[in-house]
């Protein structure tokens, strides 16, 4: 055991391995690894306005990740953020173009209504979980694939989220433009335009950190996730609390959807595939942050940088999709040490097959009536 690599060394080795492998891939496909790296850094940080764009892109990822982390800490596997985000965006889009009143108020209402939408979508899974203990890992995923045609259905109907301006070219299958005054304001810092959603996301993350780490609710969520039977015994009922957290994590994804719509880089009207994998990527951010919201903040930034950086890849002649591969390799590299550590511990602590867990004969049949 003692001659094996330590955990930090494992991280260095696996991330280094991922970078070398990425570079090899780039070379094999005819590109230059250094040029690609340059382009990524240019696109995400170096070129004018780039880091502002990266921070803006980070906001929805961080919001999704925060919700996902809350769910995971409660012992839930919510993997339907993509759909929850999309439904949230639909709800937001509906309200944003219809609600009269001053822009900022409409904006706040839009964000809240999007939260309701995301929460409702996760709520279906939560309801099934609380009612019949249907695994949320299945329902949230399935509901994501239900949300895609649902968006199409909505876009086809002007009474729902379809564009009511039929004079516009290409108005079919697209949503109505979000009015300018209901968009999130931008901050301008050193030539960068940063969407205020970034402030919103970091604030939400900070509140989540406080709730998870410092309050009774956080302690209850943790105990529920770590040992649901202990939670039940000590007064934390699994089903309602789990359902509540699942709905809340859907709300986070829903807000992320509204953020894309009112301030993000995804365009100011709904269209097919509007969610743009923000839900999936946010889930990956949560996964890599290993259930710590604080770690999710830089992790979301890295993922955002890969997104913004990839737009500069065209100049290198390497396919944009290469960043997806790099991203995937990075995810694997960051998860590998944890996995190795887990296997090691499982091996080290391995108990003999039959002699490990004492049990008050949970599955044993009653004795009696046996022939003596």
């Amino acid at each position, binding site marked *: 055991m003692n001659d094996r690599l330590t955990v930090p060394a494992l991280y260095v080795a696996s991330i280094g391995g991922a970078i070398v492998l990425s570079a090899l891939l780039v070379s094999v496909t005819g590109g230059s690894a250094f040029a690609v790296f340059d382009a990524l850094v240019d696109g995400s940080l170096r070129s004018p306005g780039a880091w502002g764009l990266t921070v803006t892109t980070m906001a929805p990822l961080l919001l999704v990740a925060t919700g996902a982390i809350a769910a995971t800490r409660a012992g839930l596997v919510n993997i339907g953020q993509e759909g929850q985000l999309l439904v949230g965006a639909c709800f937001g889009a509906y309200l944003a173009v219809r609600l009269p009143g001053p822009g900022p108020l409409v904006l706040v209402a839009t964000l809240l209504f999007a939260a309701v939408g995301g929460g409702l979508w996760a709520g279906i899974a939560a309801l099934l979980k609380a009612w019949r203990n249907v695994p949320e890992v299945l329902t949230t995923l399935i509901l994501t694939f239900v949300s895609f045609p649902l968006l199409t259905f909505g876009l086809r109907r002007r009474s729902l989220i379809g564009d009511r301006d039929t004079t516009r070219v290409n108005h079919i299958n697209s949503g109505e433009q979000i009015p300018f005054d209901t968009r999130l304001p931008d901050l301008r810092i050193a030539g960068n335009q940063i969407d205020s959603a970034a402030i919103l996301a970091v604030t939400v993350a900070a509140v989540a950190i406080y709730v998870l780490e410092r309050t009774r609710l956080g302690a209850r969520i943790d105990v529920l996730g770590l040992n649901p039977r202990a939670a039940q015994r000590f*007064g934390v009922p*699994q089903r309602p609390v789990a359902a509540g957290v699942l709905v809340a994590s859907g709300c986070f994804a829903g807000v992320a959807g509204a953020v894309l719509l009112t301030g993000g880089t995804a365009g100011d009207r709904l269209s097919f595939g509007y969610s743009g994998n923000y839900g999936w990527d946010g889930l990956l951010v949560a996964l890599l942050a290993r259930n710590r919201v604080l770690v999710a903040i830089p992790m979301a930034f890295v993922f955002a940088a890969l997104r913004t950086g990839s737009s500069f890849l065209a100049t290198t002649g390497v396919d944009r999709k290469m960043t997806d591969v790099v991203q995937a390799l990075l995810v694997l590299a960051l998860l590998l040490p944890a996995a190795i550590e887990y296997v090691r511990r499982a091996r080290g602590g391995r108990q003999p097959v039959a002699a490990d867990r*004492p049990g*008050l004969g949970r599955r044993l049949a009653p004795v009696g009536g*046996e022939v003596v």
Partner: protein
Amino acid sequence: MAGGAAVSVRGITKRYGDVVACDHIDLDLRGGEIHGILGENGAGKSTLMKILIGLVGPDEGRVEVNGRAESITDPQRAAALGIGMVHQHFSLVDELLVWENVVLGERGRLDRSAARSLVTTIGDRYGLGLDPDALVGDLTAGLRQRVEIVKCLRRDPAIVIFDEPTSVLTPQESEQLFAVLRIAVRDEDKAVALVSHKLDEILAATDVVSILRRGRVVDSMVTSAADARSLAQAMVGRPVSLRGSAMTLALGIIPDTVSDTTSDPGRGTAGHSGIGPDEPDPPTTTTSSAAPTTVRPALRIGNAVITRRGRVTLDHLTLDVYAGEIVGVAGVEGNGQADLVDLLSSLVALDDGLVEVDGVEVVSGRAGAMGAAGIALIPEDRHDSGCVLELSVAENLELSDLGRGRAFGRIDRAARCHHAERLIAEYAISCTGPDAPLASLSGGNQQRVVLARELSGHPRVLVAAQPTRGLDVGAIEFMGQRLRTAADNGIAVLLISSELEEILHLADRVVVIHAGRIRGDMRRAPAPEAAFDIDRLGLMMGGVVEAPEHV
């Protein structure tokens, strides 16, 4: 005794850190002989057997099988060498039939008829009487063990190791098991090792006995030349008084003189609370330290019914525990104890019946309700619902407060730390501090954390399920003292255990649980021997007899 040994162990040593589990052990298992391996918990018996079966590699020493030095690297290698083991805990699949369980893990084509006839043949040869088409989930503990035995004997091993085989059996089932062992050594010349910490079964069932203490073989003798006193002395390393002492009970020696209050006509009704739907008499015995102070029971479980997946696990169970007494619930595992504990942990709701604490009904199955009502509980498997390994000692010590207070209320970390430091000192919990993860503590210290938390909440009732399982002698004594102190402080203590000795040692009153019902009620006699009628208890545990008043 003559002739070469089937297995010879020479100088086997195994260390876990500073702890020497096996210290240069020499041992011979011979064909046609039942060899008792006797020792206290932690004496090194299990480690030695795991080395023989290839689950653990020795640090030093060698194992010879039929005179040839062999390296037993894994259980497959052990099986190839003809060494088989019947483990203490079963590894059976409830949803499969007996023959399916027996051939589970086989390679190649599945031959149903061959497998069935195999079960029948082996069953007939050893008198096991097993239906190959029975569903394992429907079998009793004794029959399940027979499935394990068939699984082991199917490979026709020359050497068979039984690891604490009687822990889940009634005394009668144990007798039947020993008959099977006798057949195996007499007719087939097998070498059998019987690992146990119970003196009576070593004396009854073995030919030779080796006594392990602190990883060493301290003595080895022909069983017929041994007596309980000398064995006990060798096992604990000092002279012991056998009669009536706690040590006697802990070692499983049954005093010759027992008194049974239930069969005593003079005390029959006064000393024995009836069972069933009618109101039991409040205890009126003269048992000194345990004299209940109130007429109303601190804990009352009335006609409790729990059904799980169509199977009734608690069947109109009625049980009263009064303040200041320790009531022991004896019984073979799997007779409803698990659901009784779950009920009192708020983990399962009643289908019928009620639970009352101090006369106030507690809603069953509602999260935290039992704890809030004053029921403290030391679960059998503390990792199941007793603690959270990933959290710190301080957090674990405050789990009882988890459900109380406003959700968004800030946790006062300083107060929590202070509280934890106090309890760590009071219960002598060995850890690096309040922030140490619970997983970093030893099992005994984790158990102290659980005990400290449960008792610090000033409970009315303390439920202890197998509180000493897996603990060493010192920890067992500590736990016993704490339970006694709790009772003396006016807490109603309910001790649920499948170790009869533990109950006989600690309880003021013993009830037997069988098939989800309370079958009998015995009070410790005021006689000098202060003992219970063990034969009767054994029969009640097997469901053979009921309490006399309730037939």
